């Protein structure tokens, strides 16, 4: 191998497996998405998931309140999964490990991201009942519009692009352009605001929060109960404040760098608070969670919109830092 000709050496240098470089910002976000899929797959290994209850008591009930055309397939599939729980659950965890490893392994990242979108949409319908958005029970506090939908959104926003298009104001702008990425951000956060303001569940946050304390560890249950006491009898006020904050976050994507960063930071804080207090970490400690819910995905989404400092004119984008090198972008 040490006697390669000049032509061979030049060919090698052009190949992406030669020009491997450390992960840039988008690649780090892709890896974070892969890690979440890994966690989902690991959760699918819980004993509960191999039982009939997974299909019959967890998936089936998501049909309730949905229109018939949405609900009937959920009921049928939930029943089938309940009857063949071991086989189905094994298939589910293999698919999710494949998505995690496919995104993490550079040569298969595109295929895995497409798979991520397809699988997410299937789970959103048949596993989450469209996140309850048609049932009147959706609330940003309990994970609406469905955590798994955010996997699909992130897969699109983190799609690998040509290095020459590496000029967006934030990472999520690269594949679709700035305006389309802004539209997606607004759609996500305005829909959350809509659920907060117009769905009845958010106007009764006390019962929503206290109802989640059951089955959680003592410290988390105590947080739920304290939060429920705090908002008891103030449902409208809570919904109005939360809705206003979410609208402000939605519009923050149009702000210039400094205030834009503040709004994105606010989005991260809100997502973490929702994850801890509203979602109880996706109820992961109950032994029956299939994913960590929407909190971590909203944080990832916000990081993808974090304004990137534009380089000074004259400084090459393939310049000295490894995170901005063309080889890095090509690899991811």
């Amino acid at each position, binding site marked *: *191998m*040490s006697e*390669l000709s000049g032509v*061979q*050496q*030049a060919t*090698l*240098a*052009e*190949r*992406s*497996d*030669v*020009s*491997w*470089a450390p*992960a840039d910002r988008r*690649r780090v976000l892709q*890896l974070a998405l*892969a*890690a*979440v899929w*890994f*966690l989902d797959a*690991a*959760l699918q*290994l*819980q*004993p509960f998931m*191999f*039982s009939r209850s997974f299909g019959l008591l967890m998936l089936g009930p998501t049909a309730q309140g949905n229109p018939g055309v949405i609900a009937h397939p959920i009921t049928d599939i939930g029943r089938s999964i309940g009857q063949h*729980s*071991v086989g189905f659950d094994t298939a589910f965890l293999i698919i999710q*490990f494949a998505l*995690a*490893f496919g*995104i*993490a*392994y*550079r*040569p298969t990242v595109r295929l895995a991201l497409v798979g991520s979108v397809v699988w997410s949409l299937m789970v959103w319908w048949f596993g989450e009942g469209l996140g309850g958005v048609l049932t009147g029970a959706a609330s940003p506090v309990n994970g609406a519009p469905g955590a798994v939908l955010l996997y699909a959104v992130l897969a699109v926003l983190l799609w690998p692009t040509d290095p020459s298009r590496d000029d967006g104001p934030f990472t999520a702008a690269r594949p679709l352009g700035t305006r389309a990425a802004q539209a997606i951000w607004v759609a996500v956060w305005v829909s959350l605001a809509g659920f907060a303001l117009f769905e009845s569940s958010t106007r009764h946050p006390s019962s929503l929060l206290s109802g989640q304390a059951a089955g959680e*560890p003592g410290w988390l249950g105590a947080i739920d109960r304290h939060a429920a006491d705090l908002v008891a009898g103030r449902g409208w006020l809570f919904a109005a404040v939360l809705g206003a904050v979410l609208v402000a976050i939605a519009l923050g994507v149009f702000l210039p760098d400094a205030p834009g960063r503040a709004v994105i930071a606010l989005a991260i804080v809100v997502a973490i608070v929702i994850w801890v207090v509203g979602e109880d*970490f996706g109820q*992961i*400690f109950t*032994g029956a969670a299939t994913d960590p819910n929407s909190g971590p995905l909203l944080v990832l989404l916000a990081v993808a919109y974090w304004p990137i400092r534009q380089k000074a004119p004259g400084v090459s984008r393939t310049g000295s830092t490894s995170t901005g090198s063309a*080889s890095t972008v090509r*690899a991811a």
Partner: protein
Amino acid sequence: MLAVSAYCATRLVAVRRLHRTIHIDVNVAHVVMGVAMAGMFAPALNLLGDTAWEVIFAGLAGWFIAKSARFIARHGLRGRSSDHFHGISHYLTHLVMASSMLYMYLAGGSVSTTHATGMVMAPVGGTADFVALPLLFIAVLAVSAVAHLDALGRFSPVRVAALATGASGGLASAGGEERRLLAPRLEMGCHIAMCVAMAFMLVLML
């Protein structure tokens, strides 16, 4: 798990003969963890008592704490090792893995139970009091597994050959060091397999 252990043991034996380098502590850890987890999956394969395993994994955790402290003293939190391959996360990850094993023995004991899957497993969730701890461990294992998969391309034979011959277009790297490593991608594969198996065990403790 036993296959992973056997392979890592073979690496430890073969590395001198082949005049290559490996991470000896990491391979030793993989051998021990693989044997221990095999015993957790199937009690008939359990070679040692719980106390012995706890001492072993406490020792391993102590070793990686010392390595982490030494690394920080030499290179700082954001520095790289002299071969440019690793940052502090390398040692912290293995510290977490050793700690996870220790936690599973301390919190789960060796009570065997058969679940709906028909698998026999040792750790039992009901005895775990610190449920946030296994979740933290699983998160670290997930990140470590995907990071290792991402880095596989770094050690592709084509790239290593190009680095050694200077055909990489000026990429600064420790090309010689990369050539001296013994089957690094297989070592990373073993690590990923360990992460998956360990996450499986920890999930049962949530």
